[in-house]
């Protein structure tokens, strides 16, 4: 008997998303489901872990072992899960606010620690869920927010990919939510790649950042083949305009895992305290 195979549909739940019609996150949901199917995984062997935000609602829309945790902590929950259960495929997902603002510390440490999991950030350069505040990736001059001063915050946006590289991420890619197949392929590659894979997906918030509808006309495949040289990757990322799609870095560090074998009994542990 061969193992059953599953289609993308099998990785979707029947919970209706709360997302606005047209939100980029629908595409990411489709891509994750497709990637899991393409990887010939079974729903019960996969897990999608998230924080809080519009994008972080995604686990409930998948038919996996989902965890919709708390704002900014998805990577910690995901790392704990993967370290405890190396047999599961762990995908962590969320937004730019969740991942780079409140979750920034876990992000840099996840890159460094290099646990074998895949992190998909739906970057819309805004806090969608709380109704449109600037996020770490928001342009310095964006001021269509009740929480930004006229003229914008004036703070240069973050470059999460460059930070990921400097922090030690083992696989770095950029995708666009409108390209479901392309995004699915990058996610699948990230899952296959050992260690911590980081995929930022440009996923428009059509409610608070209507202008992001134009992204579909701007994105383009990166012109370079993936590099595994951090210095080269750093230079490319520092000069990149943010619209090159594809794998930008493919490292070769071993993933962090804890061997689980029993070498002694509880009685042995007890005996350490005996006089």
């Amino acid at each position, binding site marked *: 008997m061969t193992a059953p195979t599953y289609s993308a549909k099998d990785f979707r*739940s029947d*919970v209706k998303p709360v997302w606005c019609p047209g939100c980029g996150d629908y595409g990411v949901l489709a891509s994750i489901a497709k990637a899991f199917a393409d990887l010939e995984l*079974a*729903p*019960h*062997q996969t*897990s999608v*872990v998230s924080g*809080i935000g519009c994008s972080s609602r995604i*686990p*409930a829309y*998948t*038919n*996996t*072992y*989902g*965890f*919709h*945790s*708390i704002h*900014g*902590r998805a990577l*910690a*929950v*995901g*790392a*704990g*899960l*993967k*370290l*405890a*259960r190396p*047999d*599961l495929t762990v995908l962590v997902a969320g937004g730019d606010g969740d991942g780079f603002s409140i979750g920034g*510390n*876990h992000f840099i*440490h996840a890159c460094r620690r290099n646990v074998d999991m895949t992190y998909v950030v739906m970057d819309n350069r805004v806090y969608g869920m709380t109704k449109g505040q600037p996020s770490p990736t928001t342009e310095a001059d964006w001021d269509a927010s009740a929480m930004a001063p006229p003229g914008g915050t004036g703070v240069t946006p973050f470059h999460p990919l460059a930070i990921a590289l400097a922090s030690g991420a083992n696989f770095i890619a950029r995708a666009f939510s409108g390209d479901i197949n392309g995004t699915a392929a990058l996610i699948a590659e990230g899952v296959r790649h050992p260690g911590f894979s980081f995929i930022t997906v440009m996923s428009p918030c059509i409610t608070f950042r209507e202008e992001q509808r134009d992204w579909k006309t701007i994105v383009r495949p990166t012109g370079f083949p993936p590099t595994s040289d951090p210095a080269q990757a750093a230079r490319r990322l520092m000069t990149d305009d943010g619209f090159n799609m594809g794998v930008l870095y493919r490292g070769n560090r071993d993933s962090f895992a*804890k*061997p*689980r*074998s*029993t*070498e*002694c*009994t*509880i009685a*042995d*542990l*007890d005996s350490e*305290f*005996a*006089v």
Partner: protein
Amino acid sequence: MTAANMLVDAAAQAGYYALFSRSSGPQIRGGEAAALLRLSAEPITSVDDTFQILLAIDWLNVVRFAAELPLGPDSLILADPAAGEVPEILSRTGARIVDLPMKDLAQSIPGGRPNMIALGVVAALTGLGVEPVAEVLGKSLKKKHADAFEASLAAVRHGAETGQSLDAPCRSLPAPLPRHGGRWTISGNHAAGLGAIRGGIRFCAAYPITPATESLEYLSSALPKIGGVFVQAEDELASINMCIGASFGGDASITATAGPGLALMTEGLGLAVSSETPVVVLDVQRGGPSTGIPTKSEQSDLNIAIYGLHGDAPHLVLAPQSIGDCLFTTQWAVHLAEAMQAPCIVLSDQSLGQSRAVIDPAPASPFFANREIARTPAEGETFKRYALTNTGVSPMPIPGTPGCQYTADGLEHAESGTPSSQASDHSRQLDKRLRKLVLHDYGSHWASIEGEGEIAVITWGSCTGAAREAVNRARADGINAKLIAPRLLYPTLPEQMARALDGVSKILVVEQSHLGQFNRYLRGEYDLPVRPDLLSRPGPLPIRPGEIHARLLAMGK
């Protein structure tokens, strides 16, 4: 400290019980430090009222913690005259002062050190004798450092001789009781670590913090041996959430911390409550608030442990009552957390965690992680993770089980786990999450209830030992006093408490906090027959049996 550790080991060797803690000044390394020891032929769970012997090699800035060294007219100060005058704060206690030129005595032995002289003196004065000390020295030094062994032994013998010849009356230890089986020397932090593993913990993510670190050091070395995982996390937010992730994956999980770290974990604990993910947090309390006094003990995290979560977030809070009980209580905590799929905070403290005791070996206990596991549903049935069961406990699948996929959620949800903001779903899930805690059968472990009488001492955690000793003394004085020390602090058990309080007309609450946190908790949560009297004080000074006894005498009049 080396000498004090050897004395503990020697006492254990000779069949005595011991309790050893230390106090020190602010220097990271070196500086003034005192080893505080109590030896006894019977099990010890409390500090004593005063010290019998204070032996000082030097004084440095001992005033910084002199208040932690209670002496009385029956005490003996053995001090090296080379170290200068005995500080006034100590001499005015009326303790008898005897000169003991330890540095000089040491110099008369080639390679001899003053602390070994001191060790010999104490061995002689307590009646422990040189033999057990020699045995311990042999174990630790003989093989690798034969020279050092000889020098140390000679110094100890020289000290013992000096001790014997001193005109220093001192209660000797009675003969040791006959031993049944071996003894352990263990600290509360190690005991908690071992208890966790006995209870089935196989995952720990944590961030170092005083005075919890030794628990983590223990788990970091012991867990991998037993097939478990230890990770040092980037902070406490990561620790608790990694534990939640691992527990969701099926591993019983623990983290350990102190007040500041616990403060950072409460959001994660709320997630564990709402998503019904078991997890254990060992909080080794220290002086607060804020960074407070990291190296000293206090019972002031009771409030945050019970009430520190936002929203209505019922969970489990336990407190061990002695160093040895750190093992039992932590093991029980794992069992309870897993049985009820809820977070459980174990409130230890510095005085338990960082003190080392000679105790009887911890017996096996039946409490083990035993989660109610969901299996693949039958054809046509759909799995409901948060089903409204009678017990309140809903079977939880291990990821990897076909057909049980669901999303754990910190948003309020329907039985399926799908987010819901409906009043009915909210109140049903709130009811369920409370029900599972209050319907559980905690047996007799919920509290130590000892003695009978109209006067009850209600206390908790590390104050239990002193309260027990005081109650026993009061009973010897003919006062009908009883001890009630809940090991389970949350949820509360109104019926059991009412039974314990049956016939009680006077209550003395004993605790080590400034605001009387335990007293307010008792009044708020329980129907007490009378407004309690309160004996409460912040750290670092422990509450000693004599103080409680004095209050009981006054109440018994």
